[in-house]
């Protein structure tokens, strides 16, 4: 999978490495900004109140 992405990135090894880094950072950004805030309330790690439900 990652090998396939690497082979299809344009440019020489340096350009590919740089593009990979940018892609990885973009993925981390999307995770922190959108995916984790959405997932967190669905997981039972951080409920602090008592309630009847």
């Amino acid at each position, binding site marked *: 999978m990652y090998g396939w992405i690497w082979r299809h990135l344009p440019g020489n090894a340096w350009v590919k490495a740089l593009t990979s880094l940018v892609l990885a950072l973009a993925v981390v950004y999307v*995770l922190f900004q959108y995916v984790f805030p959405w997932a967190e309330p669905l997981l039972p790690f951080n409920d602090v*109140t008592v309630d009847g439900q």
Partner: protein
Amino acid sequence: MARARDRIAGIISVFGELLITAGVVLGLFVVYSLWWTNVIADRAADKEISQVRDRWAGGPGALDTKDGIGFLHVPAMGNGEVLVKRGTDPKTLNNGVAGYYTDPVAAALPSAKRGNFTLAAHRDGHGAKFHNIHKLKNGDSIVFETKDVWYVYKVYKTLPETSKYNVKVLDPIPKESGRTKAGRYITLTTCTPIYTSDYRYIVWGELERTEKVDRDRTPPAELRL
């Protein structure tokens, strides 16, 4: 034959890469929960705290319930002042504040003649304002600062583990703490054990005295150690 083998090897390697990816994503989620949410929450809380402080700068005045009703100081938790706002929904608490209950049992404000001032805050992440709740022992002070009054409470009972359905801990007279008469109580709730929320940790305190806020906002003796 060789092609079929290549194909199987390819499928297995994609599967392996997916597993590694899942591991990295879970690791990042831990970083997010325990570090990044604190960064964001503390930033938001600092901003709100300075707004309230600015508004109070004119000296003592009537109870101010806009954007936070006051500050909680718990010397035993060693985390300075915690802004207290209305409500305990995640959106409020995620900003690094403590919230007073409006549901399922509404809290009594400290200024009320009798009742239970019930609060919740995060144990981990989102500012983790009640992270050190286990350090509170009987006799420790909990000080709540409003615009014009310091309310000094003393811890008299802790309940290290209870069900999240146990809403009775929020009652105006919290019988589980051993009290049977109406009084001016404070209840802190958060999750336990640390890093999960299987149970709830409860700390009860009772009002010992109040002090008027003076022009210099001189804190009560409990905060001057």
